[in-house]
């Protein structure tokens, strides 16, 4: 079904039809909207009046439509309408008397709905922020500004979070997952709602959705905390839907990276990238196309993390990385001020489109800075602090003992600066790394193969030599001979 028609169906209200574009209609629409917004201030917009005329046929169409992406060219009105229909749908699912008895169109439907819901929220917020910022410098569509100004609560952060949390609570999915983790049967805790696939799936994917929203808002620790009940492994429910699997690992990895846990971030990216490369032949083409962009983004993040915390990568990923970002990687690993623009470029390319939780300030356009720039600047501080580490490491690798002043001479810096670099590098090599338990837990370990200690001005260097890893190679070749 075409997206243009969808809203008309969903509202079940004739005056909302998009077929008729007359000004009167639009005016009516805007008024209707304002009323609703005012009316539901308290409930963060979830508690809408809805008319669900039309019977099961309509409902099914509504379910299908909710999982459909909006057209690329969709107008602002369409986007706002789409928000309305989501609110109606979720209100119907959550606030009807007793659980709604509907059949889920497909097994990945729940993921698609949550995914699309957050995607639209994300792009709407970015768009609104951009318009508000551009007001000051370029001519923008005044009508759009006016609509955005008057509807500050459309796609509001609170209402999106409210939907996700409500779905999680209704389905008692956290209790179910916690029980499964303890080795009990999750079904006992499912309750009236959670035992139905519709609620269970929506609840489950809402957890992944929360991970994503928290990350978009820049709250990386809370993002990881959200996944406390979900075990990251191949048997997890999200792993059955490719896009969900992919998204989960991307956001977990990214959050780890922002918490300076590069080894953990790499572990996440590695896992999913290997998985994709091994299964790409089985993926349907359309699905594969959509993840191939994310795939490149993750490779860029791998390049960043590897430059921070040199590690041996899996062969498949190493090859892909060389192919895609070989040049950049070499220069990033060399460090120094020349590497900074590369870090910036890759971060920009690979980061999620961060958003701000509050509507922009249309009165003061210049303060509506793009949240992506904000996170980038914070990240770049970290890169700058670390930029001499590769230089220090490359020299230390050559010696077992070295005089500080002599090395300072080689590097053309004074002894105090070098001493600081050594301290910085040493601290950076100690990272929190996941061992077991929640994603936020971990042990402080030495993540570098190079270690050193200073005795006055003498640097003692030691290296952890890694024995050859044969098992993986052996198994892979053995599998081939069968």
């Amino acid at each position, binding site marked *: 079904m075409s997206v243009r028609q969808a809203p008309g169906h969903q509202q079940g209200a004739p005056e909302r039809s998009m077929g008729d574009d007359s000004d009167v209609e639009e005016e009516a629409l805007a008024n209707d909207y304002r009323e609703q917004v005012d009316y539901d201030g308290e409930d963060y917009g979830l508690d809408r009046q809805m008319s669900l005329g039309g019977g099961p046929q309509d409902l099914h169409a509504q379910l299908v439509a909710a999982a459909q992406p909006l057209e690329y060219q969709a107008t602002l009105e369409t986007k706002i309408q789409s928000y309305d229909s989501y609110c109606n749908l979720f209100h119907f699912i959550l606030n009807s008397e007793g659980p709604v008895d509907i059949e889920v169109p497909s097994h990945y439907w729940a993921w698609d709905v949550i995914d699309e819901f957050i995607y639209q929220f994300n792009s709407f917020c970015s768009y609104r922020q951009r318009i508000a910022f551009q007001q000051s410098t370029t001519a923008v569509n005044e009508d759009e500004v006016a609509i955005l100004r008057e509807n500050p609560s459309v796609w509001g952060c609170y209402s999106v979070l409210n939907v996700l949390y409500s779905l999680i609570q209704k389905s008692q999915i956290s209790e179910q997952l916690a029980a499964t983790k303890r080795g009990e049967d999750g079904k006992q805790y499912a309750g009236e709602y959670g035992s139905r696939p519709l609620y269970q799936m929506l609840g489950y994917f809402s957890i992944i959705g929360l991970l994503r929203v928290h990350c978009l808002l820049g709250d990386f620790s809370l993002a990881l905390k959200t996944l406390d009940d979900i075990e990251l492994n191949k048997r997890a429910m999200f792993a059955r839907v490719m896009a969900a699997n992919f998204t989960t690992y991307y956001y977990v990895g990214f959050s780890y990276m922002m918490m*300076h846990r590069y080894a953990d971030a790499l572990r996440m990216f590695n896992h999913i990238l290997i998985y994709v490369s091994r299964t790409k032949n089985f993926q349907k083409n359309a699905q594969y196309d959509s993840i191939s962009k994310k795939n490149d983004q993750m490779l860029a993040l791998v390049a960043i993390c590897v430059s921070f915390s040199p590690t041996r990568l899996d062969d498949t990923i190493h090859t892909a990385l060389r192919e895609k970002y070989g040049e950049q990687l070499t220069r990033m690993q060399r460090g120094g001020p020349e590497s900074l623009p590369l870090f910036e470029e890759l971060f920009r390319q690979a980061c999620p489109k961060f958003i701000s939780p509050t509507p922009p300030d249309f009165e003061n356009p210049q303060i509506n800075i793009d949240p992506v720039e904000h996170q980038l*600047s914070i990240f770049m501080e970290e890169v700058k602090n670390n930029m001499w580490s590769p230089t220090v490491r490359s020299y230390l690798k050559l010696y077992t003992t070295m005089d500080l002043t002599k090395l300072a001479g080689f590097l053309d810096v004074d002894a105090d600066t070098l*001493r600081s670099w050594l301290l910085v590098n*040493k601290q950076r090599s100690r990272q929190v790394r996941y061992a077991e338990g929640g994603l*936020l837990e*971990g042990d*402080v370990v030495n993540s570098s193969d190079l*270690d050193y200690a200073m005795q006055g001005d003498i640097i003692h260097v*030691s290296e952890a030599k*890694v024995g050859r890893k044969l098992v993986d190679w052996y198994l892979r070749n053995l599998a081939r001979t069968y």
Partner: protein
Amino acid sequence: MGFAFDVAPDRPENIDTILNGLDRYNPETTGLFQEYVSQQCENQTYDCYANLALLKLYQFNPDRTRDETVTNILVKALTVFPSPDFNLGLSLLPPHVVAQTRLSSASGGPASGTLAEAVQHLTKLHHQLVNASYTAFWSTLDSDDLYADLVADVQGFEELMRVRIAVVVSQCMQEVQRDVLESWLNVSGEKFERFVREVCGWKIDGQTVKVPENKENSAQGTVVRETVKFEQFGRMVKRAYEQPA
């Protein structure tokens, strides 16, 4: 040494309940969190996870923001450098505040008395700390009255910083020259000796300070061997049964 970001040993129960429930989004709880931050400042305890929750509340309800609490949280985060806490805090601040901190002083910098000005000053301190420029850190701290104001609420800030720096030193050094350590810790003479002996438990031998050997500063070479688990061969064994010769 296990570490969990979301756990703080001294966290009161009511705060814990809020953090694990939906009340963490309730603007009414800002008061409680603010009080908790002042407690942390007074008792020298620290709970980053709860402080970030407060910054998140400010992020959602900018009108409730209390600049003083924001700066206190950031100063507390300084005391645990080089952890990412300071940056995680910045991530939750309004973008325009952090953007103003990058205005050069040539163009006037952020207006005096604003949150942006305070954040800019603290960012400078943070930058010097994570870059291990401790001597510069102390002189920056002394350079402006604003710094004294910012750290005033945090009890024992200087002592906490000295201990943190000493921890870094103990990880990297077996011996360190006395004058170097004096400038890093910003103490000298008898006070220095007392700090090194009593707080750190190190020995002073003429012009060098000896740090006892620990796991981090011994720099022993190791060989990492592959650990092979039987499960890795599971699939192979299974195949062997399925396809006899």
